[in-house]
């Protein structure tokens, strides 16, 4: 597992607990040291989901030693998107001839990783609604109960869409954590998740609002809908089969953004109804990154929408604006505030 943050650490922890041979590779020394010295603490909302797992963790500098321990069959990359190629180049030399990489990340990084190791060695796995957080060294908290049959958390796919043995294997590994399936529609699923991230991750980082804060603020709610609509239109132009987001039709979002009152009402009702399903303090990962002073994934999320929009000739003015706003906040030129989007 290259990158043992919230998602990577959580999934690998469950693998290790179930007897899978996993090496944890991470760049944060304190995290690695504590995982080795004590154990990885996984905490969930029930006591059955809370336990400590002894794991083997190594620093980036120790990866070169792995040739002696035998190469890896499957390498999960679970770093931030902007570290994808770094992680791929780091692990490349230590894969078996048939070894491959699974992008277990936000955004769409399969192409970036393919640049480094070749497309035939890269598959994707989406973690949907996992809601895990790295709260401190060797301590990961999941904020929602196990979804099980009610909602499939992990979706594993090949870039070419065929269902292969190797993605069945990956799905099996993910089932140690929660429900998982293989999908013939990796690109559509990836883009569907990107729509959600693009509509509120940057917005949270640039305004400082939480998930519920964005839903309850009239301006932020509308900006969310418009950003989602831009992203949907780009995805459709790219030819992706988009999922229905919790029962809402992608076309309805586009109609809402374009002024269809009935559609707008239904989408707003949907966003307001979601408020009841999450805690008030819960904020998207990019909002968390901004609070912690970490570099965000804005370029890889909204910036990616802008880039792909240019390829297919779909204008994405709000995605472009949010990239600019978040980058200014990242550099400390602006403080996140809802006033920045007042006239959007």
């Amino acid at each position, binding site marked *: 597992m290259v990158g043992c943050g919230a998602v990577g650490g959580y999934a690998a922890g469950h693998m290790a607990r179930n007897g899978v041979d996993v090496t944890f590779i991470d760049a*944060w*020394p304190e995290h690695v040291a504590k995982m080795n010295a004590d154990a990885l603490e996984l905490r969930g909302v029930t006591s059955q989901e809370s336990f400590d797992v002894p794991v083997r963790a190594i620093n980036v500098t120790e990866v*070169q030693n792995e040739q002696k321990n035998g190469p890896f069959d499957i390498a999960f990359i679970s770093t931030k998107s902007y570290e994808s*190629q770094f992680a791929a180049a780091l692990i490349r030399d230590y894969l078996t001839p048939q070894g491959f990489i699974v992008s277990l990340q936000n955004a769409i990084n399969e192409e970036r990783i393919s640049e480094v190791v070749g497309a035939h060695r890269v598959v994707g796995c989406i973690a949907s609604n996992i809601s895990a957080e790295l709260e401190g060294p060797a301590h990961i908290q999941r904020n929602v109960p196990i979804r099980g049959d009610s909602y499939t958390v992990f979706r594993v796919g090949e870039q070419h869409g065929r269902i292969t043995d190797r993605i069945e294997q990956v799905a099996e590994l993910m089932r140690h954590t929660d429900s998982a399936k293989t999908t013939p529609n990796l690109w559509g699923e990836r883009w569907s998740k990107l729509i959600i991230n693009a509509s509120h991750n940057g917005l949270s980082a640039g305004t400082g609002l939480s998930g519920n804060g964005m839903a309850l603020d009239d301006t932020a709610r509308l900006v969310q809908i418009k950003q989602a609509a831009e992203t949907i239109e780009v995805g459709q132009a790219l030819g992706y089969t988009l999922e229905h987001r919790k029962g809402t039709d992608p076309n309805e979002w586009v109609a809402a953004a374009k002024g269809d009152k009935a559609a707008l009402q239904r989408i707003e009702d949907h966003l307001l109804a979601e408020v009841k399903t999450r805690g008030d303090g819960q904020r998207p990962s990019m909002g968390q990154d901004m609070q912690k*002073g*970490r570099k965000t994934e804005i370029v890889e999320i909204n910036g990616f929408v802008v880039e792909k929009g240019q390829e297919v000739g779909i204008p994405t003015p709000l995605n472009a604006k949010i990239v600019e706003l978040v980058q200014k906040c990242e550099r400390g030129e602006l403080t996140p505030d809802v006033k920045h989007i007042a006239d959007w």
Partner: protein
Amino acid sequence: MGKKIAIIGAGAVGCQVGGHMVANGEDVVFIDGWPEHVDTMNRDGLRLTGVTEAENKTVPVRAIHMSDVQALSKGDPIDIAFICVKSYDTEWATYLIKPYLAPQGFIVSLQNCMNEEFIASIVGWGKVAGCIAAKISVDLRGPAHVSRNVPLLGNSHTVFRAGEVHGMETDRIKEVARLCAYTDSAMVTDNLWGERWSKLCMNASGNGVAASTGLGAADIAADAHLRMVKIKLAAESIAVGKASGFKLEKMKGVGTEVYEAAVKGDAGSRKILDDGLIAEASKGNPNATPSMGQDMRKGRRTEIDYMNGLVVAKGRETGVPTPVNEGLIQAVKLVERGEAKADPRLLANL
């Protein structure tokens, strides 16, 4: 002054060069993956020791862990990034620093072997320059402690040779030479490729032999067969370098034609090289081990794929056979993977 500099890979060379820059007021950040090293540098400073008292100093430096590289996005971007990691870590190091380079920023490969091509594949040729450190002889003794084992070479031997890949003398390459000159003598070279390959020929003929036999310099020099293996390795590398179009330099004062003649059976040339190897071993520490031998002892991965492996790869491109280099790689890998103990017999058939 005023340039923002990053050292990626604060090993022996990176620390030595970066430390002297800091001591002279340059703005340098050290990036490294060894936690204890980074923590000690920040807490106690970077300790540089040399063979004379005057060379010993402790420099307060700023070092960061790999996980903190992302925070560079908050500050001014990097103007010059020196990559000083092992060759096999070159590409990830490039990916790591690429997002934080200034628009005019560039990367200097301050490494062994010839890694400019790998870096260029990621950031483009326009953002790559090279710098050779010849006979610097530094060791990372422990966290935050680098020791130089030879005196300042100054005018007697130019330690650093900085060059653009196109060979022109640009302002930025003069800046690189200026920065390296804080440590020891430095010049701009118009022959980066030739210098790189000449150094590679030397390394390719010595490093793997020490690593696979487990012998020190004196024992290797005393063994006629091993001397001949070294000469053959050098001659193959020279042939590949010439076929690749590199303008090779003299190696330890000997022209490349002497190696070529020696492997063709010319006794006089063979004697010149044998005498040179024996004389060289008698001058230094008899137990001195090149970096690859040190890596092997520490159980670290060696640079064999980027050293003799590069000779083989370029040999295939240019149609030059390299059987002795291939045999050496096999022997080193056996030892590296723990499948054989280091032993001169591993090279008996070369």
